[in-house]
């Protein structure tokens, strides 16, 4: 096997079983690619949903990511963990999709039963945060508030957050995925946290935690 895949590839394959799986995909081993899809489909959609905004779109990007992986299989030479390579492709596709969406005019309206259109704005359905710091909302609403706070981050901050939070990736790995330096990632995550704290400050202590700090 060593001569067939090269020494460094073999070393990566030993450390990361998914590298080994990808090398089997590269060798056109039957069912290897399907195994790879099954292993990563949920994780990909998890990190793509906050970027894409809808399940359909995140699944489309995830699907495209897998196809790119398959097309590039013959030129695959492991240089890091497999997930790093996969998420790099996913990140690029997600950013392209967001840019394309920005170029297209968006109409953020939803249809009402009366046939009229009404602007969709979560703030209209939630209590006024300024006038009511001690508000009470259910989990579904809280979920929407958090989602909106996440959407309020710029794309880079959002990607850094999801990779760190949901994939438990360290700064070096996130830097590899996003093509930035670990220092830049440190800064991105810090600013993202500050922005989230600002957006969620009225909701932070609603889950039975300690009272809000009096700073």
């Amino acid at each position: 096997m060593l001569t067939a895949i090269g020494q460094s590839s073999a070393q990566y394959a030993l450390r990361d079983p998914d590298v080994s799986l990808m090398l089997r995909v590269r060798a056109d081993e039957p069912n290897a690619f399907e195994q790879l899809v099954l292993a990563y489909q949920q994780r990909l959609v998890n990190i793509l949903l906050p970027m894409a905004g809808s399940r359909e779109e995140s699944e489309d990007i995830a699907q495209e990511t897998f196809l790119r992986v398959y097309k590039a299989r013959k030129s695959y030479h492991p240089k890091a963990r497999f997930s790093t390579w996969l998420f790099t492709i996913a990140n690029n596709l997600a950013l392209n999709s967001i840019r394309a969406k920005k170029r297209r005019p968006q109409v953020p309206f939803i249809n009402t039963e009366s046939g009229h259109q009404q602007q969709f704005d979560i703030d209209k359905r939630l209590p006024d945060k300024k006038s009511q710091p001690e508000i009470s909302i259910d989990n579904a609403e809280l979920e929407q508030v958090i989602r909106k706070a996440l959407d309020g981050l710029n794309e880079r901050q959002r990607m850094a957050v999801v990779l760190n939070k949901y994939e438990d990736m360290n700064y070096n790995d996130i830097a590899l995925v996003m093509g930035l330096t670990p220092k830049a990632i440190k800064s991105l995550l810090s600013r993202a946290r500050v922005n989230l704290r600002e957006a969620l400050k009225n909701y932070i202590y609603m889950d039975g935690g300690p009272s809000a700090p009096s700073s």
Partner: protein
Amino acid sequence: MSNAEFPDEFREKEELYSSYLDGELTEEEARNFEATLASNPEERANFQAMKKTWEMLDYLPKPELTSSFTLRTMEKLAQVTNPFPVKKQLFTIGKILALAAGILILITSGFRAGTVFVGKSDNIEEELRKNLRFYENKKIYDLVENIEFLKKLDEPDLFGQDKSDL
């Protein structure tokens, strides 16, 4: 939010909170930071708020993947890996069928031609077998040129032995 909105000191402090939460500080840096938190309630409250914000992200449910996702992905892959679209595929199948038909016609014609040839050669053999005596004596017959004359020669009246000769 741009860097300009954060004073350097504030940014450094926030980065310290963030790096501590992510386990990106060295052991010594982490110890120093913990000591600061222990001695400064305001710092501690700010840090707790950041920690709590981060934990709130756990409220977001994981998206449920469409059940057909794997199947759709593998089907799409099959389309991509197959270099011919349906129309081209049909065209190619047509070409293959035409080629096969051509080959079949050639084989059939060859077989028929062969059969005719083999049949002819069978007839020749039969003819040779029937008239073997004729072909064996053909040289003599050619010299005689007249078959009636040859038959007469064979009659005993002409060249038969006389009783008186005995």
